[in-house]
């Protein structure tokens, strides 16, 4: 029983580490035009690093028909975009000052972040 309890505690620790403590490496954008795939519950890439002050364009390619995926919201920028299926969903972001800017679906199941540095 001791081993099972220990495994349980380790599992909890693993959950905490994997979902909360681990910081995934952001995708460095090479141009000011970034393509984001919306499929299977995630944005890909979801952590995007951009240069502060540069205008960027995000092109969302929505492959997931689930209603959760139909709107992307940038709460700090007061922007949103309805995503139609497929490509051609473009949003232009102003030059961002340094900081982190979230983007997510209405229910926050799809989540992403733009890191302006």
């Amino acid at each position: 029983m001791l081993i099972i309890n220990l495994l349980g505690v380790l599992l909890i620790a693993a959950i905490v580490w994997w979902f909360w403590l681990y910081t995934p490496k952001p995708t460095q954008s090479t141009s000011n035009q970034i393509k984001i795939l919306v499929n299977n519950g995630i944005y890909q890439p979801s952590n995007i690093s951009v240069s502060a002050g540069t205008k960027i364009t995000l092109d969302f390619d929505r492959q997931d028909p689930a209603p959760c995926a139909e709107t992307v919201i940038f709460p700090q920028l007061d922007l949103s975009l309805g995503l139609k299926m497929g490509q051609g969903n473009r949003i232009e972001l102003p030059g961002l000052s340094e900081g982190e800017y979230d983007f997510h679906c209405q229910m926050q199941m799809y989540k992403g972040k733009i890191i302006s540095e």
Partner: protein
Amino acid sequence: MSNKGKVKTQSFIIEGASCASCVNKIEKALAGVEGVTGVEMNFAQRTVTIDGDVNSHALIDSVKDIGYDATPMNSVSEQDALDEKAQADEAHYKKLMRNMVIALGLGIPLMLYGLFIGDMSVNTFNQRIGWAVVGFITLGVMIGTGKHFYLGAWQSFKNHSANMDTLIALGTGTAWAYSMLVIVAPNLLPDVARHVYFEASAMIIGLINLGLAFEVKARGRTSEAIKRLIGLQAKTARVVRNGQEQDVEIAQVQINDIVRVRPGEKIPVDGELTDGKSTVDESMLTGEPMPVNKAVGDKVVAGSINKTGSMLFSATHVGKDTTLSHIINMVKRAQNSKPSIGRLADVISGYFVPIVMILAVIAGLAWLNFGPQPAIAYAITAITTVLIIACPCALGLATPMSVMVGVGKAAEAGVLIRNGEALQSASKITTMLLDKTGTITQGQPEVTDISTYDQRQESSVMALVASLESQSEHPLAQAIVDYAKQRNYPLNSVTEFDAITGKGVTGTLNGEHLLFGNEALMREFGIDVSLAVVQAETLANDAKTPMYFAVNQKLSALIAVSDPIKNDSLAAIKRLQNKGIHLVMLTGDNEATAKAVAQRVGIDDYIAQVMPQDKVEEVIKRQKCGEVVGMTGDGINDAPALAQADVGFAIGTGTDVAIESADVTLMRGSLHGLADALAISQATITNIKQNLFGAFIYNVAGIPIAAGVLFPFFGILLNPVVAGAAMAMSSLTVVSNANRLRFFKANKTA
């Protein structure tokens, strides 16, 4: 409809264009495609616009041939995009329903077997073989009908995030994996725990597919308001070009085009009437039910319907610049913004799924340590049930769904709400400051009385006053000038003109010094007005604004101007008062006039002789007393006060209002729009609270029950299938509750 003059325009996003020299290459390649009449590339935006009747695939191929990639942009109209979305939703709905039928087709018979025919335990070799077959069939059904959950869970996991898919995949996966363990290695488990749960996996997948299918349908209804607005947009316009009328696509109408609209047709773009007269139904934009008369020089807006006469108008705003487009954009943006009331739910849903996973582990350990035999079976049931019952979607949907319906509902009533925060603040207003002119009154003052006190004729007095006032921007000045113009009195140019804020104007004409204004102005210049004081008081008590006119330091006339009270102001003010809102009227008028107007509309609290800058002070003063202050004004003169107020309401007559100039724009000139705005915001916030309460309670009560906290007291441990049904229904309940708002009738609430 004729397609004469039709030019197809397509836009593409170009990928791979890294240098400015690429532009020439791409433009050249596209221009070479047969049928292309014009190509323009925007390098900064990486977009290209192509004119000509050409197949889009030919254009994409030509770009690909030279090593770049092109994808079509949102060239489709909003209406087409909506139709496309409806089709995609319908296809998704059908797929979910099909998945549901297959999964329940397996799950229900299995469940019935377990309940009524045999048991689902694994004791003999034959049972192991039989259940193994069922196990693999279940796996096939799970993958076939729930692939999106497992893929989504895996992708999220790789991405260090977790969502609803994670919970479903883990829950159903745990039940299936445990069942297979029972079959493969029964000896590892005590006799009483050798039980399979394949029916749970199949039932849960089926029920969740069913819940999602219902949600797709219900969500479609939440965006009805925006669909209705987009549907107001005409597809073609009849434009007069080269002396001939031709139907062209709406996108091709240019500014200054002359457009013909016949009775019964939608007005395609914004414009100014150049010929003909008619009545126009603007109710779908403004909420104002009465059709509006239009004559040459009047403005017409896209989306309204021409009722009686044929007319020609010159296009002033086209495409994305029309009032209708601005309204659609504003409603869309507001529908996706969140009031702060939803912030806690947002924070919680950010951590929700991993917390539930931890709780599932804790529940499992608790059963293994303290549970009765077969502890492992109880633990597996509890783990599965906790994972399945938890519903982050209900929490996440609670606020946005209600905001979406509420903002749309408001737009139907001609109330444009800037964002969710304005909606929330509007629901809490305790004091409302109302600017008198244009809000309570029509804002179109008229000269009502003229009394002269020297040898001058009424006509020469009015000619002098109008000459002086023609240089003033005060709203009352227009009434005087209009009065003189209608009677063809000559207007002469005045020198040394000066406007003294809050008092009046002075100037010189033909060597005579002219003064026109209130008693304070006369006092400042030492003019004796005793002859007219009684008359002025009588006029003021009759809700008119008396003004003195003096020539060369002597009183010449007393002129009264009256701004008629809007027909429905009294009723609307009653509605606001019935809501318990304290109303304050602000006006630049003198005390007696202010009092008379306030009395007529039933407002006890009023402030007279308010200078424009005082309005901001008044807002601040009330805010300091702890009041949540709303300010209603015309949105232009009152802009600072509207900005300072907790919620600023800009009121416009018809569609002639600066949209986005305030937190809330009332398209209808009536104060009923204000009462509607407050009623809708209160109803929406109440709806959000119900949703949030429901979603919180569901999770806060559901998860512990699923974990088995009731077991020690009542012997109750939830079946995972029940949890699946509850979970599927919880988010559907939230969306359905938000949809109830669609039937809310603002004017029935007071």
